[in-house]
Protein backbone atom coordinates (compact mmCIF):
# COMPACT_ATOMS: atom_id res chain seq x y z
CA UNK A 1 0.00 0.00 0.00
CA UNK A 2 1.47 3.33 -0.99
CA UNK A 3 1.12 6.35 1.21
CA UNK A 4 -1.31 9.04 0.10
CA UNK A 5 0.02 11.98 -1.85
CA UNK A 6 0.08 14.19 1.20
CA UNK A 7 3.09 12.30 2.56
CA UNK A 8 6.02 13.99 0.91
CA UNK A 9 7.44 15.14 4.21
CA UNK A 10 11.03 14.26 4.95
CA UNK A 11 11.29 11.62 7.64
CA UNK A 12 14.30 10.87 9.79
CA UNK A 13 16.36 8.02 8.45
CA UNK A 14 15.78 5.04 10.70
CA UNK A 15 18.68 3.22 9.02
CA UNK A 16 21.51 5.03 10.80
CA UNK A 17 19.75 4.69 14.10
CA UNK A 18 19.14 0.94 13.68
CA UNK A 19 22.83 0.68 12.83
CA UNK A 20 23.48 2.43 16.14
CA UNK A 21 21.29 -0.11 17.95
CA UNK A 22 23.15 -2.98 16.25
CA UNK A 23 26.53 -1.48 17.12
CA UNK A 24 25.49 -1.01 20.75
CA UNK A 25 24.22 -4.59 20.96
CA UNK A 26 27.41 -5.95 19.40
CA UNK A 27 29.63 -3.93 21.72
CA UNK A 28 27.66 -4.97 24.79
CA UNK A 29 27.55 -8.62 23.72
CA UNK A 30 31.34 -8.59 23.41
CA UNK A 31 31.91 -6.61 26.60
CA UNK A 32 29.74 -8.60 28.98
CA UNK A 33 28.24 -12.09 29.08
CA UNK A 34 25.24 -10.82 31.00
CA UNK A 35 23.93 -8.83 28.04
CA UNK A 36 22.97 -11.55 25.56
CA UNK A 37 20.66 -13.42 27.92
CA UNK A 38 16.93 -13.69 27.34
CA UNK A 39 15.94 -12.16 30.72
CA UNK A 40 18.18 -9.15 30.14
CA UNK A 41 16.96 -8.59 26.57
CA UNK A 42 13.34 -8.83 27.71
CA UNK A 43 14.14 -6.41 30.50
CA UNK A 44 15.58 -3.95 27.96
CA UNK A 45 12.44 -4.32 25.84
CA UNK A 46 10.22 -3.74 28.86
CA UNK A 47 12.08 -0.60 29.89
CA UNK A 48 12.27 0.76 26.33
CA UNK A 49 8.54 0.16 25.89
CA UNK A 50 7.77 2.15 29.03
CA UNK A 51 9.98 5.02 27.87
CA UNK A 52 8.25 4.86 24.48
CA UNK A 53 4.80 5.09 26.05
CA UNK A 54 5.69 8.36 27.83
CA UNK A 55 7.50 9.74 24.79
CA UNK A 56 4.89 8.80 22.17
CA UNK A 57 2.46 11.65 22.84
CA UNK A 58 5.38 14.04 23.22
CA UNK A 59 6.59 12.98 19.76
CA UNK A 60 3.39 14.21 18.15
CA UNK A 61 3.54 17.44 20.16
CA UNK A 62 7.10 18.10 19.01
CA UNK A 63 6.12 17.29 15.41
CA UNK A 64 3.77 20.31 15.63
CA UNK A 65 6.80 22.38 16.73
CA UNK A 66 5.37 22.40 20.27
CA UNK A 67 6.63 21.01 23.56
CA UNK A 68 5.09 19.31 26.59
CA UNK A 69 7.23 19.59 29.70
CA UNK A 70 4.42 18.49 32.00
CA UNK A 71 4.40 14.79 31.06
CA UNK A 72 6.68 13.64 33.91
CA UNK A 73 4.67 15.47 36.58
CA UNK A 74 1.45 14.40 34.84
CA UNK A 75 2.53 10.76 34.98
CA UNK A 76 3.28 11.10 38.70
CA UNK A 77 -0.09 12.65 39.54
CA UNK A 78 -2.03 10.13 37.45
CA UNK A 79 -0.22 7.24 39.11
CA UNK A 80 -0.84 8.64 42.60
CA UNK A 81 -4.54 9.26 41.91
CA UNK A 82 -4.89 5.77 40.44
CA UNK A 83 -3.09 4.29 43.44
CA UNK A 84 -5.28 6.15 45.93
CA UNK A 85 -8.48 5.10 44.17
CA UNK A 86 -7.41 1.46 43.87
CA UNK A 87 -6.58 1.35 47.59
CA UNK A 88 -9.78 3.10 48.61
CA UNK A 89 -12.24 1.31 46.36
CA UNK A 90 -10.49 -1.95 45.64
CA UNK A 91 -11.40 -1.53 42.00
CA UNK A 92 -8.48 -1.59 39.58
CA UNK A 93 -10.67 -0.49 36.69
CA UNK A 94 -11.95 2.56 38.56
CA UNK A 95 -8.41 3.48 39.58
CA UNK A 96 -7.10 3.15 36.05
CA UNK A 97 -10.00 5.23 34.75
CA UNK A 98 -9.29 7.99 37.27
CA UNK A 99 -5.57 7.95 36.43
CA UNK A 100 -6.24 8.15 32.72
CA UNK A 101 -8.82 10.90 33.23
CA UNK A 102 -6.36 12.92 35.31
CA UNK A 103 -3.82 12.67 32.51
CA UNK A 104 -6.38 13.73 29.91
CA UNK A 105 -7.57 16.70 31.99
CA UNK A 106 -4.01 18.00 32.30
CA UNK A 107 -3.51 17.48 28.56
CA UNK A 108 -6.69 19.40 27.78
CA UNK A 109 -5.60 22.25 30.04
CA UNK A 110 -2.26 22.38 28.20
CA UNK A 111 -4.12 22.42 24.92
CA UNK A 112 -6.41 25.25 26.03
CA UNK A 113 -3.43 27.33 27.14
CA UNK A 114 -1.54 26.76 23.90
CA UNK A 115 -4.43 27.16 21.47
CA UNK A 116 -7.17 29.40 22.88
CA UNK A 117 -5.02 31.49 25.20
CA UNK A 118 -2.11 31.60 22.76
CA UNK A 119 0.61 30.93 25.34
CA UNK A 120 3.97 29.61 24.08
CA UNK A 121 4.02 25.79 24.60
CA UNK A 122 7.33 25.83 26.47
CA UNK A 123 6.07 28.25 29.11
CA UNK A 124 2.49 26.98 29.32
CA UNK A 125 3.51 23.36 29.90
CA UNK A 126 6.37 24.50 32.12
CA UNK A 127 3.94 26.36 34.38
CA UNK A 128 1.71 23.28 34.27
CA UNK A 129 4.68 21.10 35.29
CA UNK A 130 5.07 23.11 38.46
CA UNK A 131 1.38 23.23 39.27
CA UNK A 132 0.92 19.49 38.83
CA UNK A 133 4.13 18.77 40.73
CA UNK A 134 3.08 20.99 43.62
CA UNK A 135 -0.44 19.59 43.79
CA UNK A 136 0.92 16.05 43.78
CA UNK A 137 3.43 16.66 46.59
CA UNK A 138 0.69 18.37 48.58
CA UNK A 139 -1.78 15.54 47.93
CA UNK A 140 0.65 12.77 48.84
CA UNK A 141 2.20 14.73 51.75
CA UNK A 142 5.30 12.55 51.75
CA UNK A 143 3.45 9.25 51.91
CA UNK A 144 3.86 6.20 49.69
CA UNK A 145 0.97 4.04 48.53
CA UNK A 146 2.08 0.48 47.83
CA UNK A 147 1.01 -3.12 47.46
CA UNK A 148 -1.50 -3.66 44.67
CA UNK A 149 -3.36 -6.75 43.41
CA UNK A 150 -1.19 -9.14 41.40
CA UNK A 151 -3.50 -8.89 38.40
CA UNK A 152 -2.90 -5.14 38.21
CA UNK A 153 0.84 -5.46 38.72
CA UNK A 154 1.05 -7.76 35.69
CA UNK A 155 0.23 -4.75 33.53
CA UNK A 156 3.71 -3.40 34.24
CA UNK A 157 5.80 -6.32 35.45
CA UNK A 158 4.04 -9.36 34.02
CA UNK A 159 4.58 -11.41 30.88
CA UNK A 160 2.20 -12.82 28.31
CA UNK A 161 3.46 -15.62 26.05
CA UNK A 162 6.93 -14.90 27.41
CA UNK A 163 6.86 -11.28 26.33
CA UNK A 164 6.56 -8.41 28.83
CA UNK A 165 3.07 -6.86 28.86
CA UNK A 166 4.35 -3.26 28.30
CA UNK A 167 5.78 -4.47 24.98
CA UNK A 168 2.24 -5.26 23.78
CA UNK A 169 1.09 -1.83 24.91
CA UNK A 170 4.01 -0.27 23.05
CA UNK A 171 3.26 -2.28 19.90
CA UNK A 172 -0.44 -1.45 20.03
CA UNK A 173 0.09 2.29 20.49
CA UNK A 174 2.80 2.34 17.83
CA UNK A 175 0.49 0.56 15.38
CA UNK A 176 -2.49 2.81 16.07
CA UNK A 177 -0.34 5.93 16.18
CA UNK A 178 1.54 4.94 13.04
CA UNK A 179 -1.68 4.34 11.09
CA UNK A 180 -3.08 7.61 12.41
CA UNK A 181 -0.10 9.74 11.43
CA UNK A 182 0.49 8.03 8.13
CA UNK A 183 -2.94 7.33 6.69
CA UNK A 184 -5.36 9.88 8.09
CA UNK A 185 -5.90 13.50 7.10
CA UNK A 186 -5.72 14.57 10.72
CA UNK A 187 -2.34 12.88 11.04
CA UNK A 188 -1.04 14.71 8.00
CA UNK A 189 -2.40 17.98 9.39
CA UNK A 190 -0.16 17.56 12.42
CA UNK A 191 2.93 17.39 10.21
CA UNK A 192 1.74 20.27 8.06
CA UNK A 193 1.25 22.49 11.11
CA UNK A 194 4.75 21.71 12.34
CA UNK A 195 6.38 22.16 8.95
CA UNK A 196 4.78 25.51 8.17
CA UNK A 197 2.05 26.76 10.41
CA UNK A 198 1.09 29.73 8.26
CA UNK A 199 0.83 27.58 5.14
CA UNK A 200 -1.25 25.06 7.08
CA UNK A 201 -3.58 27.81 8.25
CA UNK A 202 -3.95 29.17 4.72
CA UNK A 203 -4.77 25.72 3.39
CA UNK A 204 -7.67 25.55 5.79
CA UNK A 205 -6.34 23.17 8.43
CA UNK A 206 -8.14 23.81 11.75
CA UNK A 207 -4.96 24.44 13.71
CA UNK A 208 -6.52 24.90 17.12
CA UNK A 209 -8.50 21.68 17.10
CA UNK A 210 -5.50 19.68 15.82
CA UNK A 211 -3.24 21.13 18.51
CA UNK A 212 -5.90 20.43 21.13
CA UNK A 213 -5.92 16.83 19.96
CA UNK A 214 -2.15 16.52 20.15
CA UNK A 215 -1.80 17.97 23.66
CA UNK A 216 -4.74 15.87 24.86
CA UNK A 217 -3.11 12.75 23.42
CA UNK A 218 0.13 13.66 25.16
CA UNK A 219 -1.71 14.00 28.46
CA UNK A 220 -3.57 10.73 27.88
CA UNK A 221 -0.34 8.85 27.15
CA UNK A 222 1.23 10.33 30.29
CA UNK A 223 -1.80 9.13 32.26
CA UNK A 224 -1.62 5.65 30.72
CA UNK A 225 2.13 5.49 31.37
CA UNK A 226 1.45 6.50 34.95
CA UNK A 227 -0.81 3.48 35.40
CA UNK A 228 1.73 1.13 33.79
CA UNK A 229 4.57 2.56 35.89
CA UNK A 230 2.46 2.16 39.01
CA UNK A 231 1.90 -1.49 38.07
CA UNK A 232 5.61 -1.95 37.45
CA UNK A 233 6.86 -0.28 40.65
CA UNK A 234 3.98 -1.55 42.83
CA UNK A 235 4.18 1.73 44.70
CA UNK A 236 3.32 5.38 44.18
CA UNK A 237 4.96 8.47 45.59
CA UNK A 238 4.78 12.11 44.52
CA UNK A 239 8.18 12.31 42.86
CA UNK A 240 7.92 9.15 40.75
CA UNK A 241 7.44 10.97 37.43
CA UNK A 242 10.07 13.66 37.87
CA UNK A 243 13.09 11.70 36.59
CA UNK A 244 11.17 10.50 33.52
CA UNK A 245 10.82 13.80 31.62
CA UNK A 246 14.38 14.18 30.38
CA UNK A 247 14.76 10.57 29.15
CA UNK A 248 11.46 10.96 27.28
CA UNK A 249 12.66 14.15 25.57
CA UNK A 250 16.00 12.46 24.86
CA UNK A 251 14.27 9.43 23.29
CA UNK A 252 12.23 11.70 21.00
CA UNK A 253 15.30 13.67 19.92
CA UNK A 254 17.48 10.57 19.44
CA UNK A 255 14.65 9.12 17.35
CA UNK A 256 15.12 11.92 14.85
CA UNK A 257 12.08 14.04 15.64
CA UNK A 258 13.07 17.63 15.00
CA UNK A 259 12.47 20.38 17.55
CA UNK A 260 11.92 22.64 14.53
CA UNK A 261 8.70 20.70 13.83
CA UNK A 262 7.29 18.83 10.85
CA UNK A 263 9.65 15.86 11.03
CA UNK A 264 9.46 12.76 13.20
CA UNK A 265 7.97 9.31 13.59
CA UNK A 266 6.77 7.13 16.43
CA UNK A 267 8.95 4.26 15.24
CA UNK A 268 11.91 6.64 15.42
CA UNK A 269 11.01 7.44 19.03
CA UNK A 270 10.93 3.72 19.85
CA UNK A 271 14.40 3.30 18.35
CA UNK A 272 15.45 6.34 20.38
CA UNK A 273 14.06 4.76 23.54
CA UNK A 274 15.88 1.53 22.64
CA UNK A 275 19.22 3.31 22.17
CA UNK A 276 18.79 5.12 25.48
CA UNK A 277 17.78 1.97 27.35
CA UNK A 278 20.59 -0.12 25.83
CA UNK A 279 23.11 2.52 26.84
CA UNK A 280 21.87 2.71 30.42
CA UNK A 281 21.49 -1.09 30.61
CA UNK A 282 25.01 -1.55 29.31
CA UNK A 283 26.37 0.89 31.86
CA UNK A 284 24.61 -1.06 34.59
CA UNK A 285 25.93 -4.41 33.36
CA UNK A 286 29.45 -3.00 33.14
CA UNK A 287 28.92 -1.69 36.71
CA UNK A 288 29.72 1.86 35.69
CA UNK A 289 28.92 4.37 38.45
CA UNK A 290 25.35 5.70 37.94
CA UNK A 291 26.77 9.21 38.44
CA UNK A 292 27.98 8.98 34.82
CA UNK A 293 24.43 8.62 33.49
CA UNK A 294 23.50 12.34 33.18
CA UNK A 295 26.76 13.02 31.37
CA UNK A 296 26.26 10.16 28.91
CA UNK A 297 22.64 11.16 28.35
CA UNK A 298 23.69 14.76 27.71
CA UNK A 299 26.26 13.68 25.13
CA UNK A 300 23.67 11.46 23.39
CA UNK A 301 21.18 14.36 23.23
CA UNK A 302 23.86 16.64 21.73
CA UNK A 303 24.78 14.00 19.14
CA UNK A 304 21.13 13.49 18.19
CA UNK A 305 20.49 17.23 17.90
CA UNK A 306 23.66 17.63 15.85
CA UNK A 307 22.55 14.85 13.50
CA UNK A 308 19.17 16.57 13.11
CA UNK A 309 20.71 19.99 12.47
CA UNK A 310 23.25 18.70 9.98
CA UNK A 311 20.77 16.65 7.91
CA UNK A 312 18.48 19.68 7.90
CA UNK A 313 21.32 21.88 6.63
CA UNK A 314 22.23 19.38 3.90
CA UNK A 315 18.59 19.21 2.80
CA UNK A 316 18.40 23.00 2.68
CA UNK A 317 21.61 23.14 0.67
CA UNK A 318 20.15 20.72 -1.89
CA UNK A 319 16.89 22.64 -2.14
Amino acid at each position, binding site marked *: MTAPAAWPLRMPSIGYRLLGVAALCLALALATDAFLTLPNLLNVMRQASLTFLIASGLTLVIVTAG*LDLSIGANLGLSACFAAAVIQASGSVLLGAAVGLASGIVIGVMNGVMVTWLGL*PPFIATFGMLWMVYGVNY*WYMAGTTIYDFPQGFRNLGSGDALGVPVPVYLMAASMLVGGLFTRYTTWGHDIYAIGANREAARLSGIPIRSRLMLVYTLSGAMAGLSGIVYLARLNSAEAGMGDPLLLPAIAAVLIGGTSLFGGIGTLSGTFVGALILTLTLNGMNLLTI*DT*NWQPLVMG*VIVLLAAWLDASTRRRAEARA
Partner: protein
Amino acid sequence: MSRAAVLEGGARWRAAASRAPGVAYLLAALLVFFALFGPRFASAPNLLNIGIQSSILLLLALPMTLIIMAEGLDLSMGAVLGLAGIVLASALVAGYGLPAALGAALAVGLVFGVANGLLVTRVGLPPFAATLGTLGAAQGGALVATGGQSVVGIGPSLPALYASSWLGIPFSIWVAVAAYGAFHVLLYHTRFGACVFAIGGNRDALALAGVRVHAYHAAIYALGGLMAGFAALLLTGRMNAGHPTAAIGMEFDAIAAVIVGGTRFERGYGGLPGTVLGVLAVGVLKNGLNVLAVPSSLQVASIGLLLIAALLVDSIRGRS
Protein backbone atom coordinates in the same frame (compact mmCIF):
# COMPACT_ATOMS: atom_id res chain seq x y z
CA MET B 1 8.60 47.74 12.08
CA SER B 2 11.38 50.27 12.38
CA ARG B 3 14.32 48.59 14.03
CA ALA B 4 16.34 51.79 14.02
CA ALA B 5 13.87 53.36 16.43
CA VAL B 6 14.07 50.37 18.72
CA LEU B 7 17.83 50.55 18.68
CA GLU B 8 17.61 54.13 19.92
CA GLY B 9 18.65 54.10 23.59
CA GLY B 10 15.80 56.21 24.94
CA ALA B 11 13.11 54.39 23.02
CA ARG B 12 14.38 51.08 24.30
CA TRP B 13 14.29 52.33 27.84
CA ARG B 14 10.76 53.65 27.43
CA ALA B 15 9.66 50.40 25.85
CA ALA B 16 11.07 48.48 28.81
CA ALA B 17 9.46 50.85 31.30
CA SER B 18 6.07 50.66 29.62
CA ARG B 19 6.24 46.88 29.94
CA ALA B 20 7.20 46.90 33.60
CA PRO B 21 3.87 47.98 35.15
CA GLY B 22 2.10 44.61 34.79
CA VAL B 23 4.48 42.79 37.10
CA ALA B 24 4.88 45.89 39.27
CA TYR B 25 1.15 45.83 40.08
CA LEU B 26 1.40 42.11 40.73
CA LEU B 27 4.32 42.61 43.11
CA ALA B 28 2.53 45.46 44.91
CA ALA B 29 -0.59 43.30 45.30
CA LEU B 30 1.48 40.43 46.72
CA LEU B 31 3.24 42.77 49.17
CA VAL B 32 -0.03 44.30 50.40
CA PHE B 33 -1.66 40.88 50.71
CA PHE B 34 1.14 39.33 52.73
CA ALA B 35 1.60 42.47 54.85
CA LEU B 36 -2.08 42.29 55.79
CA PHE B 37 -2.36 38.56 56.37
CA GLY B 38 1.16 37.37 57.13
CA PRO B 39 2.32 37.98 60.67
CA ARG B 40 5.93 39.22 60.73
CA PHE B 41 6.01 39.49 56.93
CA ALA B 42 6.46 43.26 56.83
CA SER B 43 9.40 43.38 59.23
CA ALA B 44 12.84 44.66 58.28
CA PRO B 45 14.62 41.35 58.95
CA ASN B 46 12.13 39.43 56.83
CA LEU B 47 12.32 41.89 53.94
CA LEU B 48 16.12 41.70 54.03
CA ASN B 49 15.73 37.94 54.06
CA ILE B 50 13.71 38.12 50.83
CA GLY B 51 16.51 40.19 49.32
CA ILE B 52 19.12 37.63 50.34
CA GLN B 53 17.03 34.72 49.04
CA SER B 54 16.48 36.54 45.75
CA SER B 55 20.09 37.54 45.12
CA ILE B 56 21.31 34.21 43.68
CA LEU B 57 18.22 34.00 41.50
CA LEU B 58 18.86 37.52 40.18
CA LEU B 59 22.42 36.60 39.18
CA LEU B 60 20.96 33.87 36.93
CA ALA B 61 17.90 35.81 35.80
CA LEU B 62 19.92 38.79 34.49
CA PRO B 63 21.79 36.84 31.78
CA MET B 64 18.71 34.65 31.24
CA THR B 65 16.83 37.83 30.29
CA LEU B 66 19.36 38.56 27.55
CA ILE B 67 19.29 34.95 26.35
CA ILE B 68 15.49 34.85 26.18
CA MET B 69 15.39 38.25 24.45
CA ALA B 70 17.66 36.72 21.81
CA GLU B 71 15.02 34.00 21.31
CA GLY B 72 17.14 31.48 23.17
CA LEU B 73 17.10 29.48 26.37
CA ASP B 74 19.69 28.18 28.79
CA LEU B 75 18.62 25.05 30.66
CA SER B 76 22.17 24.32 31.79
CA MET B 77 22.53 27.28 34.20
CA GLY B 78 21.56 25.44 37.39
CA ALA B 79 23.78 22.47 36.59
CA VAL B 80 26.71 24.73 35.66
CA LEU B 81 26.18 26.66 38.90
CA GLY B 82 26.32 23.35 40.78
CA LEU B 83 29.53 22.27 39.03
CA ALA B 84 31.15 25.68 39.55
CA GLY B 85 30.20 25.47 43.23
CA ILE B 86 31.97 22.09 43.46
CA VAL B 87 35.07 23.54 41.81
CA LEU B 88 35.00 26.60 44.07
CA ALA B 89 34.58 24.51 47.22
CA SER B 90 37.23 21.99 46.14
CA ALA B 91 39.72 24.77 45.42
CA LEU B 92 39.11 26.25 48.88
CA VAL B 93 39.48 22.82 50.50
CA ALA B 94 42.75 22.36 48.61
CA GLY B 95 44.02 25.54 50.26
CA TYR B 96 43.84 28.02 47.39
CA GLY B 97 42.80 31.56 48.20
CA LEU B 98 39.31 32.87 47.56
CA PRO B 99 40.31 34.88 44.44
CA ALA B 100 41.89 31.82 42.81
CA ALA B 101 38.91 29.63 43.73
CA LEU B 102 36.48 32.17 42.33
CA GLY B 103 38.60 32.42 39.19
CA ALA B 104 38.35 28.66 38.74
CA ALA B 105 34.55 28.76 39.20
CA LEU B 106 34.27 31.59 36.68
CA ALA B 107 36.43 29.63 34.23
CA VAL B 108 34.18 26.57 34.52
CA GLY B 109 31.11 28.73 33.94
CA LEU B 110 32.73 30.45 30.98
CA VAL B 111 33.72 27.14 29.36
CA PHE B 112 30.12 25.89 29.50
CA GLY B 113 28.73 29.24 28.40
CA VAL B 114 31.06 29.35 25.39
CA ALA B 115 30.18 25.72 24.59
CA ASN B 116 26.47 26.62 24.64
CA GLY B 117 27.12 29.64 22.45
CA LEU B 118 29.11 27.66 19.89
CA LEU B 119 26.58 24.80 19.83
CA VAL B 120 23.76 27.26 19.17
CA THR B 121 25.48 29.58 16.71
CA ARG B 122 28.11 27.49 14.92
CA VAL B 123 26.65 23.98 15.06
CA GLY B 124 23.13 25.34 14.68
CA LEU B 125 21.45 23.29 17.43
CA PRO B 126 18.15 24.51 18.90
CA PRO B 127 18.99 26.19 22.25
CA PHE B 128 16.65 23.79 24.07
CA ALA B 129 18.54 20.71 22.84
CA ALA B 130 22.01 22.26 23.10
CA THR B 131 21.62 23.42 26.69
CA LEU B 132 19.80 20.23 27.68
CA GLY B 133 22.92 18.37 26.52
CA THR B 134 25.29 20.63 28.45
CA LEU B 135 22.98 20.36 31.47
CA GLY B 136 23.64 16.63 31.44
CA ALA B 137 27.36 17.17 30.97
CA ALA B 138 27.65 19.67 33.84
CA GLN B 139 25.46 17.71 36.22
CA GLY B 140 27.22 14.47 35.34
CA GLY B 141 30.60 16.18 35.76
CA ALA B 142 29.66 17.40 39.24
CA LEU B 143 28.34 13.97 40.27
CA VAL B 144 31.33 12.08 38.89
CA ALA B 145 33.85 14.49 40.42
CA THR B 146 32.32 14.21 43.89
CA GLY B 147 30.82 10.74 43.78
CA GLY B 148 27.55 12.45 44.71
CA GLN B 149 28.96 13.67 48.04
CA SER B 150 29.14 17.20 49.45
CA VAL B 151 32.47 19.01 49.45
CA VAL B 152 32.89 20.25 53.01
CA GLY B 153 35.60 22.00 55.01
CA ILE B 154 35.91 25.10 52.84
CA GLY B 155 37.46 27.16 55.62
CA PRO B 156 36.31 30.44 57.14
CA SER B 157 37.11 32.96 54.39
CA LEU B 158 34.03 32.54 52.16
CA PRO B 159 31.43 32.09 54.94
CA ALA B 160 32.87 35.18 56.65
CA LEU B 161 32.58 37.18 53.44
CA TYR B 162 29.05 35.92 52.87
CA ALA B 163 27.98 36.81 56.41
CA SER B 164 29.48 40.31 56.20
CA SER B 165 27.41 43.39 55.61
CA TRP B 166 27.99 47.07 54.79
CA LEU B 167 25.70 49.92 55.83
CA GLY B 168 23.42 47.28 57.30
CA ILE B 169 22.90 45.62 53.92
CA PRO B 170 24.12 42.01 53.58
CA PHE B 171 26.92 41.11 51.18
CA SER B 172 24.75 39.10 48.79
CA ILE B 173 22.40 42.04 48.22
CA TRP B 174 25.36 44.28 47.36
CA VAL B 175 26.53 41.66 44.90
CA ALA B 176 23.06 41.52 43.33
CA VAL B 177 22.88 45.33 43.09
CA ALA B 178 26.32 45.52 41.49
CA ALA B 179 25.41 42.78 39.01
CA TYR B 180 22.24 44.63 38.10
CA GLY B 181 24.17 47.85 37.53
CA ALA B 182 26.67 46.10 35.29
CA PHE B 183 23.94 44.42 33.24
CA HIS B 184 21.96 47.64 32.98
CA VAL B 185 24.92 49.48 31.50
CA LEU B 186 25.72 46.52 29.27
CA LEU B 187 22.22 46.16 27.83
CA TYR B 188 21.14 49.79 27.54
CA HIS B 189 24.38 51.68 26.94
CA THR B 190 26.67 49.52 24.85
CA ARG B 191 26.91 48.23 21.31
CA PHE B 192 26.64 44.70 22.71
CA GLY B 193 23.28 45.57 24.28
CA ALA B 194 21.96 47.02 21.04
CA CYS B 195 22.93 43.77 19.33
CA VAL B 196 21.04 41.72 21.95
CA PHE B 197 17.85 43.58 21.05
CA ALA B 198 18.55 43.24 17.35
CA ILE B 199 19.38 39.51 17.50
CA GLY B 200 15.97 38.88 19.03
CA GLY B 201 14.34 41.35 16.67
CA ASN B 202 15.77 40.68 13.28
CA ARG B 203 19.08 38.90 13.16
CA ASP B 204 19.16 38.69 9.37
CA ALA B 205 18.98 42.47 9.10
CA LEU B 206 21.75 42.69 11.67
CA ALA B 207 23.92 40.33 9.64
CA LEU B 208 23.23 42.31 6.47
CA ALA B 209 24.28 45.45 8.34
CA GLY B 210 27.70 43.85 8.66
CA VAL B 211 27.54 42.96 12.35
CA ARG B 212 29.22 39.70 13.38
CA VAL B 213 25.97 38.25 14.67
CA HIS B 214 27.40 34.84 15.58
CA ALA B 215 30.04 36.34 17.82
CA TYR B 216 27.59 38.54 19.70
CA HIS B 217 25.02 35.75 19.89
CA ALA B 218 27.57 33.31 21.31
CA ALA B 219 28.75 35.98 23.75
CA ILE B 220 25.24 36.18 25.26
CA TYR B 221 25.44 32.48 26.17
CA ALA B 222 29.03 32.88 27.37
CA LEU B 223 27.80 35.62 29.71
CA GLY B 224 25.14 33.23 31.02
CA GLY B 225 27.76 30.62 31.86
CA LEU B 226 30.02 33.22 33.44
CA MET B 227 27.23 34.45 35.72
CA ALA B 228 26.35 30.87 36.70
CA GLY B 229 30.00 30.47 37.70
CA PHE B 230 29.87 33.74 39.63
CA ALA B 231 26.67 32.75 41.44
CA ALA B 232 28.64 29.81 42.87
CA LEU B 233 30.25 32.37 45.20
CA LEU B 234 26.93 33.13 46.89
CA LEU B 235 25.60 29.56 46.78
CA THR B 236 28.73 28.07 48.32
CA GLY B 237 28.91 30.88 50.87
CA ARG B 238 25.32 30.31 51.87
CA MET B 239 25.62 26.54 52.19
CA ASN B 240 29.13 26.56 53.63
CA ALA B 241 29.83 23.61 51.31
CA GLY B 242 29.70 22.52 47.70
CA HIS B 243 26.96 20.12 46.77
CA PRO B 244 26.62 18.56 43.28
CA THR B 245 22.82 18.74 43.17
CA ALA B 246 22.28 21.95 45.16
CA ALA B 247 21.34 24.13 42.18
CA ILE B 248 19.37 21.63 40.10
CA GLY B 249 16.27 23.29 38.71
CA MET B 250 17.42 26.81 39.52
CA GLU B 251 17.40 27.66 35.80
CA PHE B 252 13.65 27.02 35.91
CA ASP B 253 13.20 29.60 38.71
CA ALA B 254 15.24 32.02 36.64
CA ILE B 255 13.19 31.42 33.49
CA ALA B 256 9.96 31.86 35.48
CA ALA B 257 11.21 35.13 37.00
CA VAL B 258 12.23 36.47 33.58
CA ILE B 259 8.88 35.58 31.99
CA VAL B 260 6.91 36.97 34.95
CA GLY B 261 8.99 40.11 34.53
CA GLY B 262 7.61 40.60 31.03
CA THR B 263 10.44 39.37 28.80
CA ARG B 264 9.27 37.21 25.89
CA PHE B 265 10.84 34.71 23.54
CA GLU B 266 10.15 36.90 20.56
CA ARG B 267 11.19 40.12 18.87
CA GLY B 268 13.75 41.26 21.40
CA TYR B 269 10.94 42.03 23.79
CA GLY B 270 11.70 42.70 27.42
CA GLY B 271 14.03 44.32 29.85
CA LEU B 272 16.06 44.12 33.03
CA PRO B 273 13.86 46.24 35.36
CA GLY B 274 11.02 43.79 34.73
CA THR B 275 13.33 40.90 35.58
CA VAL B 276 14.21 42.46 38.95
CA LEU B 277 10.49 42.75 39.69
CA GLY B 278 9.94 39.19 38.47
CA VAL B 279 12.69 37.86 40.76
CA LEU B 280 11.23 39.82 43.67
CA ALA B 281 7.70 38.58 42.87
CA VAL B 282 8.93 34.97 43.00
CA GLY B 283 10.87 35.72 46.20
CA VAL B 284 7.96 37.52 47.89
CA LEU B 285 5.52 34.79 46.91
CA LYS B 286 7.73 32.01 48.30
CA ASN B 287 8.54 33.92 51.47
CA GLY B 288 4.97 35.13 52.05
CA LEU B 289 3.46 31.67 51.62
CA ASN B 290 6.13 30.41 53.98
CA VAL B 291 5.12 33.00 56.59
CA LEU B 292 1.50 31.91 56.11
CA ALA B 293 2.69 28.32 56.72
CA VAL B 294 1.49 27.09 53.33
CA PRO B 295 3.14 23.72 52.53
CA SER B 296 6.21 24.12 50.33
CA SER B 297 4.61 21.87 47.69
CA LEU B 298 1.82 24.37 47.18
CA GLN B 299 4.40 27.18 47.05
CA VAL B 300 5.88 25.43 44.04
CA ALA B 301 2.43 25.11 42.49
CA SER B 302 1.78 28.80 43.09
CA ILE B 303 4.86 29.78 41.09
CA GLY B 304 3.53 27.80 38.14
CA LEU B 305 0.25 29.62 38.60
CA LEU B 306 2.07 32.99 38.85
CA LEU B 307 3.87 32.23 35.59
CA ILE B 308 0.69 31.41 33.70
CA ALA B 309 -1.21 34.31 35.31
CA ALA B 310 1.49 36.76 34.23
CA LEU B 311 1.30 35.45 30.67
CA LEU B 312 -2.48 35.62 30.65
CA VAL B 313 -2.57 39.21 31.93
CA ASP B 314 -0.03 40.02 29.27
CA SER B 315 -1.96 38.44 26.42
CA ILE B 316 -5.22 40.10 27.55
CA ARG B 317 -3.50 43.51 27.72
CA GLY B 318 -1.99 42.88 24.31
CA ARG B 319 -5.37 42.14 22.75
CA SER B 320 -7.25 45.11 24.16
